[in-house]
């Protein structure tokens, strides 16, 4: 290992990366755009559900119920009618996702304590949204019922008083869940892409052979290739975390040291994977293909979009070998649960073993293919 040669390689690599405006946009623009995309557009929150109301009762109470539904951000009334058939038509056209039908005698039933009825009709073709909207609506209507009962002095026989509270993300904002996870995807993508392509590009150009004729050793070459990428991914990490905290107000409750430790191990794993891809690809196209074949299962089996706990057992076991899974777990632990280094020793250790294994194997293969 010779410091002059490693420095020369790092300097050369940095020059090439920073000189090309396209690469620069990729390195620093893409992470920001992706973070904004995931922060804003990719949301599983159910808000502003278009709702239709048919009020056959037309009383103060029935109007109060409609007001209760629209008091929050959850429902937005786009249709008011006095014919029930309108609800069905609007649902068919996709104009509304939920219909509320208040039958005649609603107010009098309430007052008499006979148990008033309200009908909810939901567009089940989007089952996720329908389930969530139904949950919100039932809660609001039940609370409305309770308030009315109390106001009229009726005692209600209630068996269980259920009060749910979501920890770590009290308002269950999907953004709080998504944005830290995006950090994991971005780091992986950047490290893989930049490492694999920069090696394969040199193979295509013939400069790799030129380097092999020089006294540069494979070890020096590996350092020369990975150090600049590691620096860039760390800059991306800082950029994305800053944006997540300051712009999206994602709480960073845990220790920054823990976050950086986890990221360091994770980046090392990704660099190793990038190197590995570079040894099995002759052209940049091949490298791209291999990368996508690897990325897709890595994301699906990471728990980013689909919870691991609901996967079939086989796939649950498979996720144990996925570094993305472990890093996402670490990131969420640190961001949302306020973990410090000591709380996450196990996943850290697993990631460390993975980093050592993948990077070691990649280096061994890299030496062999060059030698």
């Amino acid at each position, binding site marked *: 290992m010779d410091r*002059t*040669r490693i420095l020369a390689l790092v300097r050369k690599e940095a*020059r090439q990366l920073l000189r090309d405006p396209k690469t620069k946009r990729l390195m620093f623009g893409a992470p920001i755009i992706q973070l904004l995309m995931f922060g804003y557009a990719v949301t599983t929150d159910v808000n502003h559900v278009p709702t239709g109301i048919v009020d056959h009762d037309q009383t103060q109470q029935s109007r109060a119920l409609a007001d209760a539904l629209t008091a929050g951000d959850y429902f937005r009334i786009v249709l008011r009618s006095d014919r029930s058939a309108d609800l069905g038509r609007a649902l068919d056209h996709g104009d509304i996702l939920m219909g509320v039908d208040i039958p005649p005698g609603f107010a009098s039933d309430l007052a008499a304590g006979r148990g008033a009825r309200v009908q909810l009709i939901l567009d089940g073709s989007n089952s996720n949204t329908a389930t969530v909207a139904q949950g919100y609506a039932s809660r609001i209507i039940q609370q409305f019922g309770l308030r009315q009962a109390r106001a009229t002095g009726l005692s209600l026989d209630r068996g269980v008083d259920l009060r749910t509270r979501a920890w770590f993300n009290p308002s269950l904002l999907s953004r709080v869940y998504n944005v830290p996870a995006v950090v994991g995807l971005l780091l992986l993508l950047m490290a893989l892409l930049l490492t694999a392509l920069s090696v394969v590009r040199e193979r295509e*150009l*013939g*400069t790799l052979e030129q380097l092999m*004729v020089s*006294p540069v050793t494979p070890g020096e070459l590996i350092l020369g290739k990975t150090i600049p990428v590691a620096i860039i991914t760390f800059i991306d990490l800082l950029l994305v975390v800053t944006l997540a905290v300051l712009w999206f107000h994602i709480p960073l409750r845990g220790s920054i040291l823990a976050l950086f430790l986890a990221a360091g191990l994770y980046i090392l794993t990704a660099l190793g994977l990038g190197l590995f891809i570079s040894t099995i690809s002759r052209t940049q196209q091949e490298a791209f293909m291999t990368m996508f074949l690897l990325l897709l299962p890595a994301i699906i089996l990471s728990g980013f979009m689909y919870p691991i706990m609901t996967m079939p057992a086989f796939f649950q076991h498979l996720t144990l070998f996925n570094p993305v899974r472990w890093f996402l777990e670490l990131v969420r632990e640190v961001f949302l649960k306020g973990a410090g280094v000591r709380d996450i020793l196990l996943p850290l250790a697993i990631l460390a073993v993975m980093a050592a294994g993948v990077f070691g194997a990649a280096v061994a293969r890299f030496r062999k293919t060059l030698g």
Partner: protein
Amino acid sequence: MIGEALIVLDGLTRRFGALTAVDRLSLEVRTGELFGIVGPDGAGKTTTLRMLAGVLPPSAGEAHIAGISVGRDPEGAKPFLAYMAQRFGLYEDLTVRENIEFYADLYRVPRRDRPARLERLYAFSNLGEFEHRLAGKLSGGMKQKLALCCSLIHHPRLLLLDEPTFGVDPISRRDLWLILHELVAEGVTVVVSTSYLDEAERCDRVALLHQGRMLALDAPTVLQESMSGRLFAVTTAAPRAARDRLRAHPAVQRAVLFGDLLHVVVQPDTPAASIAAVPGVQAVRPLDASLEDVFIHLVGEAAGQEAAA
């Protein structure tokens, strides 16, 4: 200037599957020599040079550079040799200067030596005024000169060049050969491969390669003289008929059409009169053999021997 053997090949062989690209090549290149490896595509030139450069291990045989075995110690000779591949990879997004400096760093050229070395390289390559231009924006000939500068910045004792003039314009080609002669005059040993036989005549000695085998090894002039008195230009009114009659002549080894003329190769010590006596032959004139004539002749002989065996 020419001293003891710097490169010794002993039965050097490289196989790629069923194909034997280089077949039991044995030769010596002496220090300070301008040595040509000459042959058509597929002769094994690139394979030989890559083995010498230590990037391709031999399948059998040995190659020693300054006593270091390239098979056993591929790194050993790297610090003092330079290899310029046919498609030398330049970093097209770096400038001329940055490319050269990069190789200077890799070979650990001391900083204090660099200004003088750069100045010399710029002087013979005329690259000085393009110092800050991106390598990708240079012309083909200029790129080749930059590749040579990158190869020379560490003052190699041995320079291996794989078809350096391939696809280079005639002026740049002449410049490159002038540079090579200058280097040799300074004591650098140069091994250059080429498929242009006219260029090969500029070398001190050449190895003629065909399909992985060495057909001949000597100074171009010696090779040419080996055919002196054996090559004739024959004038005739009916070239095709005359060719067939000449081929039937026992002393004639080869007779080929060459425009209006026939080029005839005869066995040694055949008098011209014996050719002139063939019916239809109007005049016979002795020819100086070019390296190309020698090569074609040797390929024909090798094919004849193979057919006989």
